[in-house]
């Protein structure tokens, strides 16, 4: 699948934003974060900015962005519509949570928890958009939704560790939770990669045409690339995919883990500063992972254009 930058940026940024929003809500509800105005402004501000920039960037690839509001109408059948509804609905508790925290220095735990639920539901819907697409074997996989939830939770909690540390509200628990999230998400992602490498999928050039095999493309229907080949026919060389997987693991998981362990040895803002580098690395790794998620996905329509299996 063609890795459209706007969609990759959207899912990574809004994933980190929803993750950060959810953890802020949860730790306020647990009474582990103070209702400090400036911390609230920067923390919730960053979360909502990432979410909003992500949502706006996702409209850039639309043919008719001015009609985007229509996408809220088909929540009965469409995961994309459900995602839109959940994203907008989450602004309500998150906005009230932020107003109370920043303007009145009263962070409401219930609004925090509602924001966290909204964030989780929205990311779940994002994952289901991909997981529900049967023609893409690498997406129609039971690990896809856990991967999306895992990356959102992981990048969110590392950002929380960094911000709390920088504002002097650091807590070793945040760093340990980040390490746990990194380990769990890495395990889910490795399981996903193993799964798509081993599962060959049911569709082949023979099932696509119904002809006795082997089926070889003799003449394509057109001499130049068409929309289907540009949008669905993107391929990344296997050796590059393996290298990029290692880069995603090193930058997105190993580096933040080492930096967070280092931050546990330090105190106060120095720890926060190191955690900030960890947060940037984790988000960078998530971008590489998301790019690969598209580039490694092979659509069934490629079977009509010479691919033997999809």
């Amino acid at each position, binding site marked *: 699948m063609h890795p459209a930058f706007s969609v990759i940026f959207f899912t990574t940024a809004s994933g980190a934003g929803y993750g950060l929003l959810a953890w802020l809500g949860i730790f306020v509800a647990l009474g582990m974060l103070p209702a400090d105005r400036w911390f609230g402004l920067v923390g919730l501000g960053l979360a909502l900015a990432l979410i909003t920039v992500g949502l706006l960037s996702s409209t850039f690839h639309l043919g008719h962005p001015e009609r985007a509001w*229509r996408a809220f109408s088909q929540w009965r059948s469409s995961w994309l519509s459900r995602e839109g509804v959940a994203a907008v609905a989450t602004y309500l508790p998150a906005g009230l949570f932020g107003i109370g925290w920043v303007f009145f220095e009263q962070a409401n735990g219930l609004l925090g928890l509602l924001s966290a639920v909204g964030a989780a539901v929205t990311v779940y819907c994002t994952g289901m958009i991909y997981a529900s697409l049967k023609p893409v074997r690498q997406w129609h996989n039971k690990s896809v939704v856990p991967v999306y939830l895992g990356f959102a939770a992981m990048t969110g909690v590392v950002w929380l560790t960094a911000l709390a540390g920088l504002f002097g509200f650091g807590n070793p628990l945040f760093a340990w939770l980040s390490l746990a999230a990194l380990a769990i998400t890495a395990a889910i992602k490795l399981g996903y990669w193993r799964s798509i490498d081993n599962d060959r999928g049911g569709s082949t050039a023979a099932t*696509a045409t119904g002809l006795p095999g082997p089926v070889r493309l003799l003449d394509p229907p057109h001499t*130049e690339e068409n929309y289907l080949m540009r949008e669905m026919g993107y391929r990344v060389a296997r050796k590059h995919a393996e290298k990029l997987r290692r880069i995603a693991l090193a930058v997105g998981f190993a580096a933040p883990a080492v930096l967070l362990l280092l931050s546990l040895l330090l105190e106060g803002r120095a720890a926060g500063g190191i955690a900030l580098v960890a947060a940037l690395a984790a988000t960078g790794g998530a971008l590489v992972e998301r790019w690969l998620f598209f580039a490694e996905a092979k659509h069934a329509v490629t079977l009509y254009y010479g691919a033997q299996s999809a």
Partner: protein
Amino acid sequence: MTSLPESPGAKRLGLVIDLDICVGCHACAVNCKEWNTGGYPAPLTDENPYGSGTSGVWLNRIHAYESGEGANSRTVHFPKSCLHCETPACVTVCPTGASYKRAEDGIVLVDEDLCIGCKLCSWACPYGAREYDHDAGVMKKCTLCIDRIYNENLEEVDRVPACVATCPVSARHFGDLGDPDSDVSRMVADRGGYDLMPEQGYQPTNKYLPPRPRRTEAGDTGAAAALTPVAEAGGFLGWVDRMLSR
């Protein structure tokens, strides 16, 4: 509404494509483009039509494959357009209600005034039936020539999809596949018509008729298997025959 019809009608209009007959002339694709660039999904935009990097929206494409090996291998011309599936995920993924499946005849359509051009429907189709029009910013697809098949301004014989009307060898047939007694349903039953990618679970309405078994022996064609002499030749021709047979 992008939910599928709750009580779909018995009528399921679609195509039956005979892979034994298709000669790969692309006339159906050309007439499809010709009719539809002025019809319901008009225009079917072409980009750089006279330069390099030509690209355009076509609702019907003709692939050609080599199938099988050795003496049983053959070239198969393979037309492909929207299959108007019974469970079309292209419809249910649509966030705006632009894509819909008609209850009355099963045709899958796009309301271009509602389409936001998110392209998700084209991702949801394993068959590549939908093509995005970059110029119009909306998705285009086969309408089964809805503006021909119900068009009372046309002679009744012309009320078939443009691809069917133009096929010079009658490799494409149009009809009601929901009616087991229709000509197309009988053809499917007689010839072992099949679904493309049944494992995807989309239950396509359009059916493909497989190429007939290859006829390699002279007798398979209905001609005499070998030439046998009618009678023993005598006289001069008999003498020539005997001399040449030495």
